[in-house]
């Protein structure tokens, strides 16, 4: 009976063509595999930052895109991937995209970020600041311009002109001939990294005498960088230059400290801190650990803390303090030394003291030294920037070309001289240069370090403890310093101060697609072609007889044979 029923079903399909058609087509559609990815264009796109800091979220929450592309000035942007050049993206326009419920935004950055005009730089930097000020659900991507991307963009702008056609027929035609693009970013949605560890690396040089009784000078620089897209944050000046300066200081003073005649009576502690762009999380934890723990006497007798931040993209130097130091204190002496050292350079380096009180109401601290100042440690930051509000510290424009090795080298020399004058008590000795010959600063080595630091993006979330970059820093420090240690920490589980998310770089596919109208046109064309073919086939005897006539007239001999 089972078989007879099956036979009936088969019979049913055989008798009715439309029924079987309706039955099989959906099945075929269902069983057909998920459309395979054969993209003509594939390029890397850099997603906007996404992180939670101190309880509030920043950046873009989503990462997946599978939408048709549109230029930014198109009328209909709902559920579309907007592709725009950097100069066309403004904050009002961005808000407009949000209200129109656009699906995604792809910003095409100029090919070479270093030759932007100053207006364009300003535009990009303020855009970065405004984008990062709040949270958005719109996936925002950045991509450097390539010839392929430019082609896509031009096609898009050209294709969108159909929206403004005069007649409906023209609009239909232009939509049928237009080249559309489907932008696809697939993979997993970005997800939180609650277990992410931020790494600090510390090392020390012990002074001459009983170590516990000597005052300590802490020299610190944060090694991470930031920008609107973590995958593009190379941070050459902020804070690649600070790291280079710290490494150079470590090298110079390790040389001096190995010689018993130049072994000073100060302990030097070097700290490369992580999470600096996220309100100096690394520094904060490091201070807490060293203050709380009873066995560590690292911070028991600190003369002062010297923070190095952004030393390479300007020729002047500024000492940022939270409280002006008294003249006879260690801080006052260092200030005086810095002034003399800056003056003794050739040409003299402009130097000034910048005083800014800590504003505890602010969400973000202005400088790294404020972390120490809060804990009542004498601390200051050396930087070529005169104001902490400068956007140069948080931009993707901070690339290798921004840092001039000469400036960096001079600034390092000034800091080294000032430090040396202080720890060897040479303040009143007048004008002289200490770091020459065997202990001179090496500009080539500094440049090489800068190249290494800017060879990869250094956003905090891209530098987990196991990253090669951190082990490289650690190895280098341990070449010069003693007792080099890593110190890693996680955010608190219940009330995390910072949460990072996966997904900085994604491959984006641009599929060349045609609108549905085009398929209709094509179907009509094919139907016409088949009709012609059918007519030709049914009237093939005409061809026969025609050929036969030709043959009969040309070679009558054939018949007689």
């Amino acid at each position: 009976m089972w078989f007879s029923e099956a036979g009936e079903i088969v019979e049913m399909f055989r008798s009715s063509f439309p029924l079987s058609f309706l039955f099989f087509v959906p099945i075929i559609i269902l069983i057909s595999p998920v459309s395979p990815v054969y993209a003509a264009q594939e390029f890397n796109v850099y997603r906007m930052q996404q992180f939670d800091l101190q309880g509030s979220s920043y950046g873009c929450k989503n990462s997946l895109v599978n939408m048709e592309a549109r230029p930014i000035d198109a009328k209909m942007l709902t559920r579309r991937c907007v592709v725009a050049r950097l100069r066309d993206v403004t904050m009002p326009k961005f808000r407009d995209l949000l209200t129109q419920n656009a699906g995604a935004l792809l910003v095409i950055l100029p090919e070479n970020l270093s030759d932007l005009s100053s207006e364009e730089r300003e535009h990009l930097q303020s855009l970065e600041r405004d984008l990062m000020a709040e949270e958005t659900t719109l996936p925002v991507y950045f991509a450097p311009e390539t010839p392929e991307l430019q082609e896509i963009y031009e096609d898009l702008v050209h294709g969108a002109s159909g929206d403004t056609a005069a007649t409906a027929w023209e609009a239909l035609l232009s939509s049928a001939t237009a080249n559309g693009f489907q932008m696809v970013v697939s993979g997993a949605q970005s997800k939180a990294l609650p277990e992410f560890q931020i790494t600090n690396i510390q090392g020390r040089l012990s002074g001459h005498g009983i170590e516990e009784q000597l005052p300590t000078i802490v020299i610190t620089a944060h090694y991470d960088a930031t920008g609107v897209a973590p995958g593009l944050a190379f941070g050459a000046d902020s804070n690649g230059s600070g790291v280079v300066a710290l490494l150079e200081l470590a090298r110079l003073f390790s040389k001096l400290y190995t010689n018993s005649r130049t072994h000073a009576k100060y302990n030097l502690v070097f700290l490369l801190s992580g999470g600096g762009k996220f309100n100096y999380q690394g520094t904060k934890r490091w201070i807490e650990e060293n203050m709380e723990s009873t066995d560590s006497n690292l911070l028991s007798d600190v003369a002062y803390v010297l923070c190095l931040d952004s030393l390479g993209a300007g020729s002047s130097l500024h000492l940022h303090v939270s409280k002006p130091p008294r003249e006879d204190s260690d801080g006052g002496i260092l200030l005086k030394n810095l002034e003399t050292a800056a003056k003794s350079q050739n040409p003299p380096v402009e130097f000034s003291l910048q005083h800014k009180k800590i504003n505890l109401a602010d969400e973000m601290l202005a400088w790294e030294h404020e972390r120490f100042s809060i804990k009542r440690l004498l601390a200051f930051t050396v930087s070529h920037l005169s104001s902490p509000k400068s956007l140069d510290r948080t931009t993707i424009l901070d690339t290798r070309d921004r840092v001039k090795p000469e400036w960096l080298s001079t600034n390092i020399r000034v800091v080294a001289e000032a430090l040396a004058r202080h720890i060897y008590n040479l303040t009143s000795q007048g004008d002289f240069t200490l770091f020459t010959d065997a202990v001179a600063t090496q500009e080539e080595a500094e440049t090489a370090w800068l190249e290494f630091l800017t060879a990869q993006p250094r956003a905090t979330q891209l530098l987990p403890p196991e990253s090669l970059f951190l082990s490289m820093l650690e190895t280098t420090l341990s070449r010069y310093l003693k007792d080099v240690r890593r110190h890693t920490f996680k955010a608190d589980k219940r009330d995390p101060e910072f949460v990072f998310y996966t997904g900085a770089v994604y491959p984006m596919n641009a599929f060349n697609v045609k609108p549905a109208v085009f398929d209709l046109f094509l179907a009509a064309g094919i139907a016409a072609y088949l009709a012609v073919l059918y007519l030709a086939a049914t009237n093939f005897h005409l061809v026969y007889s025609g050929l036969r006539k030709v043959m009969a007239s040309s070679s009558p001999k054939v018949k007689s044979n």
Partner: protein
Amino acid sequence: MTFFHFGNCVALSYVPYVIVYKCSGLAEYSAFWKCVQAGGAYLFTQLCKMLLLATFFPESAAAAGGLDVTGEFLKCTVDLADLLGLHIVMSKFAGKGQLKFMIAGMGWATAELVMTRVVPLWVGARGVEFDWKYIQMSLDSNVSLIHHISTAMLVWLYGRSDLQKSLVPVVLLLLGLACYRPLIVEILIHAVGLGSWMLLMAKAAFTSCVAMVALQMYLGIPSQLVNSHY
């Protein structure tokens, strides 16, 4: 693109086969099963060819993108086996001459269509990306239908004893041309740099010329002049 696009491509490549089958009189002789047998013969011939190629023609280390004329020539020579296969198929079938080569050509072309076009269309034409090449592929399958039928016709003509002796070299030449068609196409692509649409047009023109000449010779055979049913 979409499933609709796939449907378009399938219609473009398969419907002409159906039209030819219905209109050439094959349907009236219920030659469907014989066509399937011819298709089986096609499969067997391809298997033999592949064995031959794999055994005697090692992968030549020609530079990628370059044209390896000798290698291609040798490969096309193996295609002579196709002609042999067609001949055997036709010698096995009883029936009128016209029917014989129609069955062989139809079966051969259909088998080739199923074997070489279905999967690329299924995978490619349904992808997100739009490309004209699937439409071109479908049109190309129409051209190859004409090609296979005319080849079968030529093979059949060659086997006829009442073919004019003066026409034998012409038949051989055309057979050679049909056989070395892929090589000629390759050379055309490299030498002239034809675009894909021009190449398709050239193929169509070339094939229809061969077909017209073959048809004329076929009509020149005395028996056809006497008992043609038109």
